[in-house]
């Protein structure tokens, strides 16, 4: 008998070692997929449009640098060259023309077609004999005065035509990009703005940090303010790390101290935490084998698992201690298993059902999260069932039996006091009020990234500063229209938006002057200047210049002036091809970037009101607004599915409809108060805090199940024993998550507040409401 028990223990130890080794290897191979895009449903139309137009990527990878130096203009060429040499940089835009690349490229292909009326008049005048002579005289002056560039300018452009084109291009740029410098400078010429495009997305924090460090290194001696995704990523990463560091630095010692004080043992807290730690390693390790790279959201499962997994160990160890006072160690373990097995399994199954419901949604990031949580919960239970008994058995001689727990006595006294009934009813009232507030006010789901950072962050201020300098939002909205639709209504609509001040400027297909009117003007110019090349040769000869040397230059200009856009193409700006259709594409830049979902919605509504109804608006900053409702409906559907599953599992676990419903009282109150608080304060649920919900759900159901199971076993005495274990799980979770309330990231702070509120209410409901209901509803 003893031999077979030893054999069994050996098998268990070998199994645990094998699992831990596999998990540890898996954890070392664990890769985080920093691309937040992978979290989104890839079949979503807006996600596809953002990817198809590259608008999302371009917005994410644009980093604007505000540079300050007294002689910045003179130093810019060298700086740009230094930045271009960086292997981390895809391109650098410093010249104004580079900020509107599409148009510049189209203009290079058929330059004449992009000239405005003033330029067409100047060109016609410059191609006439008198204009030619003037141009040649200017070029000769350059030859006489500039030994470095004069000859080259004379040979390539003896008539000085290049100025007509560059002036026209300058006039086509927005107001802020005009002025007397080819660079983007302020009036005092001591501040410049340049755009650096990165080679990877800013979600890759390592890359973002390396890029910013490299740029700072290359721009030593300059005051530099980076604005954009990379800077936001770095700022957020630093802030979140700081938040977690400051919170963990005191919450972990405090949790350990509490457990030591509460269990009155140095060893027991470690024995409780070891199986949880092992379960997290196994889950993440095996998860990485099975899922491949995981998203940062999925990785947050580790925190939830620690919160929920510790419950299993705390209940198991507590009950074992109780039994150990009566019988020997193997018998105590056997009794513990037989008595709380059902409650542990019920708790694990209900939480798993909730997480499975989340993982069946449309969001791949949530699927991974749900899968890891289910796996982790299974391992937590397995570790509590197999690993913890081995530890308890092995350390049995050091675990001395203790007297009655002070906290348990206090809890029992509170439950027995005359105040318990009114307090239980107050809890019911609070929970009910919470659900009513939720039902009447509704709960907003806001997935916008601004929710994740403080409103007055350095990046928010820098972004505002940049927009003030430019006079417009540098990352605009893209609008696309099926090419089979006429472009004129789009042109008129955009012109209206600009006239009414909704947008500061725009770029794209609607600005291509390729219509019949422009064609007629060009035709007229070409007629009026026919034979200009021969005339130029004669004028050069008359100026004492041998025309042969100028043949190449004149031919090159003749080719450029004769160039037309590709036949059949009515736009020089490349069309956007998507799902076998071609689309006109334009980018609209408002005066300032909308800072909230409400402002974005308002801007889109105004834009939509002026543009043809078939236009699609692609706002890289508004993807969260588009996906927020989808995520909210996913969560709502999950909530219903998991409510049903939790109810069924509770009933099956307790083999009674009545007891099953009573066991749900803590979670109903906990979630009701937490969600009601959100609704009352008009705080939205967002990706940073919604993880609180599964956590409260898991803890609340656990609390209720354990209390009901024990109450049915020992009656009112359950409050003193199981109440103590629930107290321990509540305090550890409340310290762990409550410490986040002081975080500077609003998302993390609201997560802390929600979990703290939910767990405290669940605890109070477990020791006050559940016993009250059990007393009232059971014979």
């Amino acid at each position, binding site marked *: 008998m003893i031999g077979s028990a030893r054999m069994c223990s050996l098998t268990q130890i070998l199994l645990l070692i094998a699992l831990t080794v596999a998990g540890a290897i898996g954890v070392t191979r664990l890769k985080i997929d920093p691309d937040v895009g992978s979290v989104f449903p890839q079949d979503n139309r807006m996600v596809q449009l953002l990817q198809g137009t590259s608008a999302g990527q371009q917005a994410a990878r644009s980093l604007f640098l505000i540079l300050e130096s007294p002689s910045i203009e003179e130093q810019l060429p060298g700086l740009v060259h230094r930045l271009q040499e960086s292997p981390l940089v895809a391109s650098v835009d410093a010249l104004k023309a580079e900020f509107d690349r599409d148009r510049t490229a189209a203009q290079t292909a058929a330059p004449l077609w992009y000239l405005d009326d003033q330029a067409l008049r100047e060109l016609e005048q410059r191609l006439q004999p008198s204009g030619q002579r003037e141009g040649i005289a200017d070029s000769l002056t350059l030859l006489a005065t500039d030994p470095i560039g004069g000859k080259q300018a004379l040979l390539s452009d003896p008539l000085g035509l290049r100025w007509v084109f560059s*002036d026209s291009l300058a006039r086509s740029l927005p107001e802020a990009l005009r002025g007397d410098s080819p660079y983007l400078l302020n009036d005092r010429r001591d501040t410049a703005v340049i755009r650096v495009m990165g080679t990877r997305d800013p979600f890759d924090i390592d890359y973002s940090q390396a890029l910013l460090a490299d740029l700072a290194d290359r721009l030593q001696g300059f005051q530099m303010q980076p604005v954009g995704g990379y800077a936001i990523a770095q700022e957020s990463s630093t802030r979140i790390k700081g938040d977690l560091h400051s919170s963990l630095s005191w919450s972990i010692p405090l949790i350990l101290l509490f457990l030591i004080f509460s269990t009155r043992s140095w060893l027991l807290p470690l024995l409780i935490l070891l199986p949880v730690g092992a379960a997290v390693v196994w889950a993440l390790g095996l998860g990485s084998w099975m899922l491949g790279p995981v998203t940062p959201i999925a990785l947050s499962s580790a925190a939830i698992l620690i919160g929920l997994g510790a419950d299993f160990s705390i209940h198991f160890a507590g009950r074992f201690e109780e039994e150990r006072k009566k019988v020997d160690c193997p018998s105590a373990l056997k009794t513990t298993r037989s008595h709380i097995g059902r409650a542990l399994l019920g708790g694990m199954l209900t939480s798993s059902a909730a997480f499975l419901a989340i993982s069946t949604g449309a969001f791949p990031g949530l699927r991974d999260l749900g899968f890891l949580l289910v796996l982790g919960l299974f391992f937590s239970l397995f570790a509590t069932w197999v690993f913890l008994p081995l530890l308890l058995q092995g350390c049995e001689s050091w675990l001395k039996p203790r007297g009655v727990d002070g906290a348990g006595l206090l809890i029992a006294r509170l439950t027995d006091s005359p105040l318990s009934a009114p307090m239980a009813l107050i809890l019911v009232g609070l929970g009910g009020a919470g659900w009513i507030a939720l039902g009447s006010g509704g709960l907003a789901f806001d997935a916008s990234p601004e929710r994740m950072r403080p409103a007055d962050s350095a990046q928010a201020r820098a972004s505002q500063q940049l927009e003030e300098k430019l006079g417009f939002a540098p990352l605009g909205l893209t609008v696309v229209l099926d090419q089979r639709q006429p472009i004129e209504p789009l042109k008129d609509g955009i012109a209206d938006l600009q006239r009414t001040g909704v947008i500061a400027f725009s770029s794209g297909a609607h600005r291509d002057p390729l219509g019949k009117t422009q064609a007629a003007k060009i035709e007229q110019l070409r007629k009026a200047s026919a034979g200009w090349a021969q005339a130029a040769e004669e004028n050069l000869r008359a100026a004492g*210049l041998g025309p042969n040397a100028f043949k190449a230059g004149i031919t090159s200009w003749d080719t450029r002036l004769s160039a037309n856009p590709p036949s059949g193409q009515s736009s020089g700006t490349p069309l956007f091809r998507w799902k076998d259709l071609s689309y006109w594409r334009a980018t609209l830049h408002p005066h300032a970037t909308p800072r909230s979902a409400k402002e974005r919605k308002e801007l889109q509504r105004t834009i939509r009101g002026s543009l043809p109804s078939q236009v699609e608006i692609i706002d890289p900053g508004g993807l969260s607004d588009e996906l927020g409702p989808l995520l909210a409906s996913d969560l709502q559907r999950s909530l219903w599915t998991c409510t049903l599953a939790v109810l069924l599992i509770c009933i099956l676990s307790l083999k009674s409809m009545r007891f099953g419903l009573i066991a749900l009282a803590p979670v109903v109150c906990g979630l009701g108060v937490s969600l009601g608080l959100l609704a009352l304060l008009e705080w939205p649920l967002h990706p940073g805090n919604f993880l609180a919900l599964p956590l409260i759900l898991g803890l609340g159901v656990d609390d209720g199940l354990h209390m009901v199971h024990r109450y049915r076993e020992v009656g009112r005495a359950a409050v003193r024993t199981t109440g103590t274990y629930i107290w321990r799980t509540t305090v550890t979770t409340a310290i762990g998550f409550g410490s986040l309330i002081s975080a500077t990231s609003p998302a993390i702070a609201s997560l802390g507040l929600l979990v703290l509120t939910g767990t405290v209410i669940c605890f109070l409901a477990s020791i006050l409401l559940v016993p009250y209901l059990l007393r009232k509803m059971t014979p």
Partner: protein
Amino acid sequence: MRLALALFLTPCLVGQPAHEDLSGKELLAARSLIERTSMALDDVRRMDAEFVQTQESVLLEKPMVSGGLFYLRAQPACLLLKFNKPRAVEVRSDATSHRVYEPTKNRATRLVFESNELAKALMGVFTQEINSIEKLFVLESLTAGKQDTTISLRPRSKELSGILTKLQLTIRNSDALVLAMRYTNKEDEATHLRLMKVVLHSKGEKLDQIFDAPLPKAVRIQVRQIKKPSKAE
């Protein structure tokens, strides 16, 4: 014996400087004159002068003459030529850029170099840096006159030869100032710059900031980047 021969020849073939065209007394005289020039410019912060420039070109039947005011800053080296003939043009050159501003046309062209080798070489002639001119040029010949002496130089490096093939400096004997410079490009086009009414400003003097004054507002600017020619080029 073989070893001795090898030891003798190795520095001759590898370590010795390139063959100097000038030798003996003439070489010493040229070096002495350059040393005097360098000493004369030792404390100079800025050189102002009037100038006349004659530009020859294969494109032209006869050379073009221009002129105006010459300003040269020693540190950081910068040359500003304010032409008033044939019409107002300002040419500003430093180690990495070259700007031609035409005030009457309200426009400017800026060439941005990885390294403006020509400007660096030519500006060095008018500063104390002239004492290291032999790092860039070989002293080719010396023509001593009563009033002034002309030294002809040839670039040492292939890189510089691609920009100018010959440089001639005319130095006044009395005060060792460089009064004229003539350089020829690889197409044998010569640029001749003659200075008059030279004024030297010492380092202690308070001077107007003429070199870094921004261009007036509303000037249209074209910018071109000039890459350093690769070794293959």
